[in-house]
């Protein structure tokens, strides 16, 4: 496909320029022209009042679709313990595998066989498992080589990994090596009913827009998936599957991890596991304002989060930040206090089951995302809420 501009029809009105997310349309000699930034997103097609912009297909463009079969999940670990995102990927992978009527496999590097067995209970039919010394600690090159080799041998149709520091670092190397497409940080995955292709949806432009990406001609179709967005699959104690042990012979690494330092506090880890979160933004007004949120959180048994505005002001440490540049959370209940609801914050918490917004500005965009909204002064509302919750719980 290519986007073409019919120079005879183009009047140089510039209507298309504003529609382009990529700065890919310029005016040259009074006519619009598409430059090298074009991503074929087709945003401009419907905008032209003259109908001068169209999509043309080039026959030479069609590439062979590889023979892929099976859905794979890369299950990452840290310190020999499988990361929670792996179970979420198995949940998403199981759904895709059923739609494609194929099997679901997991790939696990650097864990014991009992962790591999857990992946089967979480939904995997098969686990490719390697526990050699070189992959116990994460280094990009050996991980990329070993996973690429496995993919080339078994030719899966789809490969998913967590959009974590590990997945986002080495999976691009795998895609580069295999000459196939990779979509970063997906928040939704579906199968196109007609073609069987994977529809990979992700936020772009800091969450201001969503884009659905296809990898139509090469296999596997690869995606990293944002943690805490997909639902875990069902855990079945009795599920049986196959564990295939592999080894990492002749694999080298030119980087070497000298030391691993743990820094994140309990709070940061709790935030992503929390079932209730109380979050504060600019409207909280300062560190003192956060104190009343801490009291509410204590009554609810909740963790504390913050918007970027509150973190940038220095009212609360970065590890509490939720949003595009912070953590993504998906609790059962999210109470947003004094948070206006910039889209960068919303992408980090909108998969929460129930969202409550408390803000004194009735026009705050957070109310558009909330299930329940209260307009009012949080310094009056929150202490009263804390008191009533304590009463309700008989504390």
């Amino acid at each position: 496909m290519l986007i073409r501009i019919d120079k005879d029809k183009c009047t140089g009105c510039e209507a298309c320029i504003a529609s382009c997310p990529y700065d890919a349309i310029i005016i040259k000699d009074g006519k619009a022209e598409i430059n090298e930034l074009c991503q074929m997103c087709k945003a401009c097609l419907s905008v032209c009042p003259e109908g001068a912009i169209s999509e043309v297909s080039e026959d030479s463009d069609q590439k062979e679709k590889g023979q892929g079969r099976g859905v794979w999940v890369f299950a990452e670990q840290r310190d020999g313990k499988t990361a929670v995102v792996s179970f979420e990927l198995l949940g998403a992978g199981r759904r895709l595998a059923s739609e494609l009527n194929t099997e679901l496999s997991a790939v696990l590097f650097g864990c014991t066989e009992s962790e591999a067995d857990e992946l089967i209970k979480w939904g995997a039919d098969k686990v490719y498992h390697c526990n050699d010394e070189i992959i116990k600690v994460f280094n990009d090159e050996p991980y990329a080589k070993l996973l690429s080799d496995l993919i080339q041998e078994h030719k899966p149709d789809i490969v998913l990994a967590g959009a974590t520091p590990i997945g986002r670092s080495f999976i691009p190397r795998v895609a580069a090596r295999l000459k196939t497409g990779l979509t970063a940080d997906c928040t939704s995955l579906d199968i196109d009913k007609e073609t069987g292709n994977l529809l990979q949806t992700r936020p772009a432009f800091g969450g201001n827009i969503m884009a659905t990406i296809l990898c139509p001609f090469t296999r596997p179709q690869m995606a990293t998936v944002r943690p805490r967005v997909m639902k875990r699959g069902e855990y079945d104690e009795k599920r049986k599957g196959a564990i295939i042990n592999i080894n990492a012979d002749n694999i080298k690494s030119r980087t070497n991890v000298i030391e691993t330092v743990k820094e994140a506090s309990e709070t940061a880890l709790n935030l992503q596991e929390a079932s209730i979160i109380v979050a504060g933004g600019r409207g909280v007004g300062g560190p003192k304002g956060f104190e009343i949120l801490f009291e509410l959180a204590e009554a609810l048994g909740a963790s504390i989060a913050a918007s970027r505005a509150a973190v940038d002001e220095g009212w609360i440490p970065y590890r509490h930040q939720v949003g595009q540049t912070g953590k993504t959370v998906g609790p059962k209940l999210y109470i947003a206090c004094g948070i206006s609801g910039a889209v960068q914050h919303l992408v980090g918490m909108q998969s929460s089951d129930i969202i409550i917004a408390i803000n004194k500005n009735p026009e705050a965009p957070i109310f558009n995302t909330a299930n329940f909204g209260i307009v009012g002064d949080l310094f009056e509302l929150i202490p009263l809420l804390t008191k009533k919750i304590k009463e309700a719980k008989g504390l």
Partner: protein
Amino acid sequence: MKIIVCIKQVPDTAEVRINPETNTLIRDGVPSIINPYDMHAIEAGLHIKEKAGGNVTVITMGPPQAETALREAISMGVDSAVLLTDRAFAGSDTWATAYTLAKAIEYLGADIILCGKQAIDGDTAQVGPEIAEFLDIPHISYIRKIDEIKDNKIVVQRLMDDGYDVIESSFPVLLTVVKELNVPRLPSIKGKMAAKKAVIQKMNAADIKADENCLGLKGSPTQVRNIFAPEVKKDRIMLEGTTEEKVTALVNELMRLKCL
């Protein structure tokens, strides 16, 4: 030490909005800037040069107007700038972009290649590691501190979810950096003068000896199918009344939803 910094000119995304009715971007007057993470990569390049000697080159792939971003980098103190521009690069996804940049870097030669951790328009964080794979060199992502630079190795800290890893690598190496690494310097008067006079080296597909099947749309395995505005919840309930009534209503809802 030969240092190359890859940069990207991006729209200042904090200001980009979508019109939910037409599904098109509203971006009147949105300025173009150097991707903020790349500013930290430029600073890291200048810092390494000051410590270990050598020279710093910035490189970008983009339309002719991306020259502005390169001149801004020169005003900060980098030695030279290269603009990769060719209609054949149109429609590049991360794979084709990384291939193109890697071919150029191969041609120019480098000991250290620096990238921002991701660009704020695409947010993919993929181009850096992909360049390293094409060049068959190691890479380390999310660098938050450079501990040590020696003749034959570099020691850095890689930011992880639960802390950081201290990692060493041989040269050449590609590093992607996070903003905690440094504070980008402001352009100096001398730098601004240099930026005005600087000659930007322009290179096209033929100059970097690229395989045309790997470039632009033709070389891109992924396609954008469509773009749309994020969803808005429609079923929200506003709780009204006095403070007492609002809070009571909320507590009742929480009990009904079994959140307490």
